[in-house]
């Protein structure tokens, strides 16, 4: 049977506020346990929440970016359940009246087409603390620093049909929230976490199959692998005559398998009701419009502009526009070099490779946009070759400085002196008699291909510094004279 996969995502985005959603404690990551959990975060008796305006502004920014209706009236509710990382015994969240209503994003698929994913709503809520499972005499330790960190939970419709689409959607949300500057986008630190609702149905069937929920996935790669694994499990199960049980499952990346979280299986009754400690949040059009005016250029618009303005390929434009810091970096380099294609190649190529290896984001890149532009400019003016450029880049990365200072100090300047180049060519011709003989014996139309070997030898001899264009011209001239 042919199966269709149906996926909906719930993405939790930690907002990049200075303080918690309902208290004045810092949200900075990585502090000593419970040093950023104030009386309100610990739910001390008598404490009360007061709503952080910046969390509201950020949620509205997101709503505007996905073309959603903004809730002029939104209401916080309590979701009641007991858990040690939930100090009040309820999570303050939104249910019936969220801040962001229905919206949508468009994702680009590999075949170049695009698909619209509808967003059901997005709401504000507070994050929980963390349970640490290192053994404290058979006990768990509770750190409440994260408790009360503002979250926007973005709930999609079940509009995705493959693991790749789900990952593309998650990347698009990531691009939007980082471009807006409302989230640092650091998935390893849990700034963006994903729950995937996955079901399958026979192709052509209207009714949805029973879904499972894969909890708390924090990388794009894992989203893709977890869904693929879960889909395979569901297909096997059904084809073996079993049936899918609605449950919460955990993806184990080490074993590449999903498994049931039985501890969360207990039928819960969350007893939602409007939080009596908070009043309805009422905003007007003027408030929304002020925020709209301050929105930065969004990833889709920027991607299109990169195509139109810089003649970049869809692919390069999409990659560069996917993160605000990267797009800004690119534009800074282009402003200095005037060559979009070359700049894009360096950023998506060499720079991306180094950043990946060092596990750094572009905003933490040791090579700044000015430094990279300085390097590209030396390639443009034939001071160095592209190949030498890579060496210079590595030195810039490791040691800092400017391309000029490195080229000067290491003597990497390209050789444009035709006398020196001719001498090198002569030396190669003298040393490579067999190859020269082959060249002479070859049909004239095959000789072009054989030129590469001599090019390589000359470049090697000149330590890559010879101007490749000049080498090619002179080589051909000299060899053809021998024929």
């Amino acid at each position, binding site marked *: 049977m042919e199966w269709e996969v149906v996926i909906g995502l719930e993405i939790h985005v930690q907002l990049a506020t*200075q303080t918690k959603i309902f*208290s004045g404690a810092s949200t900075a990551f990585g502090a000593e346990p419970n*040093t950023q959990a104030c009386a309100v975060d610990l739910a001390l008796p008598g404490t009360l929440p007061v709503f952080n305006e910046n969390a509201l502004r950020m949620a509205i920014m997101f709503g505007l970016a996905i073309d959603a209706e903004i809730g002029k009236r939104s209401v916080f509710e309590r979701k009641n359940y007991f858990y040690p990382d939930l100090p009040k015994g309820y999570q303050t969240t939104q249910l019936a009246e969220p801040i962001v209503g229905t919206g949508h994003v468009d994702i680009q698929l590999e075949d170049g087409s695009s698909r619209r994913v509808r967003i059901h709503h997005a709401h504000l809520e507070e994050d929980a603390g963390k349970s640490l499972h290192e053994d404290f005499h058979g006990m*768990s*330790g509770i750190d409440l620093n994260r408790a009360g960190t503002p979250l926007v939970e973005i709930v999609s419709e079940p509009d995705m049909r493959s693991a790749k689409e789900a990952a593309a959607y998650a990347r698009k949300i990531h691009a939007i929230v980082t471009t807006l500057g409302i989230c640092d986008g650091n998935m390893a630190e849990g700034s963006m976490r994903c729950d995937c609702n996955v079901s399958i149905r026979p192709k052509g069937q209207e009714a949805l199959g029973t879904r499972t929920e894969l909890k708390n996935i924090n990388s794009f790669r894992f989203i893709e692998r977890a869904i693929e694994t879960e889909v395979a499990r569901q297909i096997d199960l059904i084809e073996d005559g079993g049936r899918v049980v609605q449950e919460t499952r955990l993806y184990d990346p080490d074993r590449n398998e999903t498994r049931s979280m039985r501890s969360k299986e207990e039928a819960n009754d969350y007893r939602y009701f409007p939080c009596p400690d908070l*009043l309805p949040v009422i905003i007007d059009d003027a408030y929304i419009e002020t925020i709209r005016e301050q929105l930065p250029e969004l990833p889709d618009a920027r991607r299109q502009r990169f195509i139109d303005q810089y003649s970049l390929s869809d692919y390069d434009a999409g990659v560069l526009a996917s993160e605000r810091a990267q797009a800004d970096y690119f534009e800074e380099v282009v402003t200095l070099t005037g060559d979009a294609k070359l700049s894009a190649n360096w950023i998506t190529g060499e720079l991306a490779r180094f950043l990946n290896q060092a596990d750094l984001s572009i905003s933490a890149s040791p090579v700044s946009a000015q430094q990279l532009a300085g390097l590209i400019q030396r390639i443009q003016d034939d001071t160095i070759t592209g190949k030498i450029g890579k060496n210079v880049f590595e030195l810039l990365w490791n040691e800092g400085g400017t391309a000029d200072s490195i080229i000067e100090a290491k003597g990497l300047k390209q050789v444009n002196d035709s006398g020196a180049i001719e001498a090198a060519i002569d030396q190669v011709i003298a040393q490579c008699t067999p190859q020269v003989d082959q060249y002479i014996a070859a049909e004239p139309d095959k000789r072009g291909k054989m030129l590469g070997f001599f090019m390589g030898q000359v470049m090697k001899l000149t330590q890559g510094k010879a101007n490749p264009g000049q080498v090619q011209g002179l080589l051909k001239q000299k060899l053809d004279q021998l024929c």
Partner: protein
Amino acid sequence: MSLDRSDVERIAHLARLAIHEPEIPEYTESLNSILSLIDQMQATPTDGIEPLAHPLDAVQRLRSDVVTEANQRDSLQACAPAVEDGLFLVPKVIE
């Protein structure tokens, strides 16, 4: 609406209250008498009446996003039943 023993047990579980077997009849009886008092309101028609969550027709005030709380872990944990390395200790949490 009348509660039976299993309702009382379910509610006690939701509220995380241990309930001893001999207390169940007493709880069931007193909860039922409270519910019958409460059920007096069912006779009043309320169709179309906007629920009142707060007596004042006020709206949420907003706090500016400025850190106001310094680390006070020691004083805040002074009354904690079990703490180690700055963490609150609880029986093992099973994910």
